[in-house]
C-alpha cells in the first residue's frame, strides 16, 4: 500500500539565467512500513525533496500524495496541520523546543492537535527509546544522541503516516549515530512506521530496505 507518492516533482528557484532546478522531475513511491533512504551529495536536491514531501514548501509543479491526499495545493496553516497529523520530522539539529520538558516535547504534536495522549503507547515509545529517566528534564540537559532520541520519540508519538529524517546523525559521532540509526530501524519495525532517511552517507543508507539515489535534482538509482 502506497503511503507516499511523488509525481514528476519540480522545484525551480530564480528565473532565466539564474534559474536553479533544485528538483527536476522526481517520481517515487514509498510503501507503508518501508524503511527507505534517499542518498545524494550536498546540493543534489535531497533536502528540497524532503521539504516538498514533508509539506514544508510547495513544489513548482508536480504532485505529492501522502496517504491518498494530494498536498501540493495546501497553503499556510493547512500545511501546518497536515504536518502535525501526517509527518514526523527528525532533523540534524534535533529541533526540540528548548523550554519544555522531554515529555512535553514528545507529546507536543498530539496536544497541538488537541488529542488525548495515549499514555500506554507513549510510555512504550519512551521506554523503547530509553528515555524513561529523562522525561522530566529539559532538552538542553541531554546529550546529542539523547536529544535525537527524543526527536524520534516525538516523531513516533503522533503516529504519523511517515517519518522523515533529514541527516539524523549529521551532528553525532559515529558511535552515537549507530545507536540512533539502530533505533530508527528497530522502532520503525516495532511500531509499524514508514521511515525515510535522507543522507549523504552511504553506510547509513545501507541500513535501509531500499536506497534511492538522487543527484542534480533527479533520481539516478532506485533499488
Amino acid at each position, binding site marked *: *500500500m502506497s503511503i507516499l507518492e511523488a509525481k514528476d516533482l519540480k522545484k525551480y528557484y530564480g528565473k532565466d539565467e539564474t534559474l536553479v532546478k533544485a528538483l527536476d522531475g522526481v517520481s517515487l513511491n514509498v510503501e507503508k512500513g518501508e524503511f527507505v533512504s534517499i542518498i545524494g551529495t550536498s546540493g543534489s536536491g535531497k533536502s528540497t525533496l524532503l521539504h516538498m514531501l514533508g509539506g514544508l514548501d510547495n513544489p513548482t509543479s508536480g504532485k505529492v500524495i501522502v496517504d491518498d491526499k494530494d498536498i501540493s495545493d*495546501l497553503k499556510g496553516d493547512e500545511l501546518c496541520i497536515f504536518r502535525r497529523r501526517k509527518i514526523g520530522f527528525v532533523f540534524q539539529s534535533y529541533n526540540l523546543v528548548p523550554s519544555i520538558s522531554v515529555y512535553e516535547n514528545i507529546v507536543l504534536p498530539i496536544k497541538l492537535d488537541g488529542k488525548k495522549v495515549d499514555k500506554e503507547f507513549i510510555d512504550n515509545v519512551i521506554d523503547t527509546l530509553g528515555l524513561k529517566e529523562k522525561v522530566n528534564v529539559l532538552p538542553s540537559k541531554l546529550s546529542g544522541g539523547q536529544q535525537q532520541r527524543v526527536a524520534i520519540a516525538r516523531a513516533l508519538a503522533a503516529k504519523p503516516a511517515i517519518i522523515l529524517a533529514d541527516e539524523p546523525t549529521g551532528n553525532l559521532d559515529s558511535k552515537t549515530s549507530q545507536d540512533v540509526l539502530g533505533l530508527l530501524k528497530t522502532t520503525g519495525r516495532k511500531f509499524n512506521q514508514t521511515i525515510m532517511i535522507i543522507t549523504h552517507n552511504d553506510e547509513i543508507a545501507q541500513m535501509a530496505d531500499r536506497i534511492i539515489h538522487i543527484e542534480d535534482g533527479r533520481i539516478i538509482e532506485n533499488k
Partner: protein
Amino acid sequence: MLANRTIVRLEEMLDDAIEGTFVEDKYDESRMSRLESRWKDFLSNSVLSNKNLETERQRLEQFISDISHQTKTPMTNIKMYSTLLSEEVSRGEDASLEKIRNYSSEIEKQTSRLEFLIESLTKLSRLENGTLSLSAKKEDTNKLIRTSISAIESKAALKNIKIILDDDNGLTSLFDMKWTNEALVNILDNSVKYTPEGGEIKVFTESFEMYNAIHVVDSGPGISEEEAARIFGRFYRGNEVKQEEGIGIGLYLAREIISKEEGYIKVVPNNKRKGGEIVVYLRK
C-alpha cells in the same frame, strides 16, 4: 443545521470508505477535520491488517513450497544412495564394503541435513507466526558468545580455522539465551563456511549507549554491497561459495530472532573492509 451538515459529511465519509476512495477533505483546526484524519488513519490500518492476513497466507504457501523445495534434494539423495546401497548389497560377496560405508554415511548425512532443515523450518514458522515467543531478559553477553563458539568449535577445527575471542568485559544485554544462541551459531556457522582453510574468525563485543554489538569478522571473501541487502533473504547462499554445503535459512532465522528481541543485524560490505563482517546489535 450544523448538526445536519455533520451527519451528511459523516455519511459521505462512510460511503467513500466502503468504496475505498476516502481522502481527507481539508486540514484545519475543526474537529471534523481531525475526525477525517483519524478516520483515514483507521482505514489505512485496517487495509494494512487485511494485507497482513494476506501476507500471512502467502507466507504459509511459501513455507510449504520451501519445504518441498528444500527437502527435495536431500530426499532425492537419500533415495539415490538407498538405491545404490541396496544395489551394492545385492551384489553379495562382490559388494564393496567401502562403497557401502560410503553410501550409508552419505544417507546419514542427508538425513541429518533433512532433520536440520525441518527443525529450522519449524522453528522459523513458529517464530514468524508468533506461536513461539521469545523471553528477552538481561543476560551475560559473553556467556552467549562462548556457548555459541563452543557449538562450532569442532567444525572450525576441521577446517583449521582459528577462532579469536576478545571478551574481557561482562556486558549484559536483553535477549533470550536459547534462541539468540541459535542465531549467533547460525552466523558463526556461516562464517566458518565461508572462511577458507587455515583462516581465522574474530569475535569481539562493543558497547553503545542503547545497544551491545557482537562483531563476527572472518577472513573469507566478505560480502559485496550488492549482496548485503539480500544475504538475509530466505535460503540465500553466497555466489562465491555455491560449492560449499549449507543452506541459506540460517542467517534469515538469525535475523528474525534478533529483530524479535528489538535488536538488528548489520552487514559490513567488503568494499569497506577485507573479509566478511556481520554485526549483531542487542538491546541493552
